[in-house]
């Protein structure tokens, strides 16, 4: 996604590697919103939002699966920390996983083995 500009037409002949911010990625037959896109609009989101504290977000970044202790609609969700948009999560049944770019996760050290399940703080 790129913001509208009067100059776009002039560069339309370039061999583009990437035009603006990636919004969706195709995962098999599904479309997944990117963390970058959800970070962009996440502060304004009013639905499908999960507010986390920092330690919980870090656990998601490390690859842990969190068990939700309150009901949440299944699908992709906005993750927020102190009101700031942190990225994309995926809820299936009562489980939440982070959907961050690999290089995000590598910074926080991906945990090996079966992910520990923890309860999401109220």
């Amino acid at each position, binding site marked *: 996604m790129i*913001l509208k*500009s009067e100059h776009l037409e002039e560069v339309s002949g*370039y061999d583009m590697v990437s035009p603006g*911010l990636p919004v969706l990625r195709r995962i098999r037959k599904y479309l997944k919103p990117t963390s*970058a896109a959800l970070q962009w609009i996440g502060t304004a989101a009013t639905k499908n939002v999960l507010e986390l504290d*920092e330690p919980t977000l870090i656990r998601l970044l490390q690859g842990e699966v969190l068990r939700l202790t309150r009901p949440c609609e299944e699908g992709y969700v906005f993750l927020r920390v*102190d009101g*700031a948009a942190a990225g994309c999560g995926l809820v299936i049944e009562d489980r939440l996983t982070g959907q961050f770019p690999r290089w995000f996760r590598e910074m926080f050290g991906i945990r090996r083995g079966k992910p520990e399940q923890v309860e999401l703080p109220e």
Partner: protein
Amino acid sequence: MMSEPHPFDSYRDFIPDFNDFMEAFRDPPRTVVRANTLRSSPEELRSRCSRSGILLEPLKVHPHLFSAPGHWAAGSSLEFLMGLCHIQALTSHVPVWMLEPGPGMKVLDLCAAPGGKTSQMAQEMDNSGLIVANEKKAGRMPALGNTLTRLGVMNTITVGYGGEDFPKRTLFDRVLVDAPCSGEGKQGYKAYHRPSRLRKASRSLTELQKRLISRGYEVLKPGGRLVYSTCTFNPEENEAVVAQLLDRTDASMETVSPPLSHSRGITEYQGRSYERNVEKCARIYPHQVHSVGFFVACVVRPETSS
């Protein structure tokens, strides 16, 4: 036994307080973070870090910049991942300050990876207008893409041309040529104890720099502004490159006066003389600013240029 001369010894004649300059490489440059105003505000970044026990000290030189404590692993902080800030050397901000990109402009960043300056321009332009971020090396493209997406840059397309062969079909209001260089301003820190690690400027590198600035000028609009920068001290990669552009085109030098301690460009080096106007360039040395060394030149294309 005679010790090998240090690669920087040939700069002794023009770098002020040369011994202080050499000693400045003993300690790493300070960590500077820039608040990403596309996502947040400097106040919010400072307050969020403060709650995590990280005290950011505002830098007078620019309202978006903070000095960060050396122990803070800023690059793996949540603030960094959430795109609220970017880590960039203080002096590395100067080229964009001198370029003065504004909202609505069409800007070319000829050697864009890893994207720190591209994203700084997007902030200055308030995510409006258009930036073409060019990077020749495919291996550096992911770093560029990661920076731009993490910081929420939405006025930029990325392309992968050789900078010296960049298509001439469109002219730009602003062109940044932050050229590949021997990196002495940065490498001096890593090579403090082993100067032999310092990379020498090859003839092919200086030739590439000349072709880059030349192509950058060819795609600059009449009345437009071009900034050429490197993070090295070698005049062959700096003043000599700018002097050749002045010699071969109608480019006009602008005086570069960043709000940091700096020295003027030099007009002689190892028996070679450069055009007098290259004095208008700025040389920024580590011992003057406690940051990476930089060279910055600014030229404008006359309104009457054909």
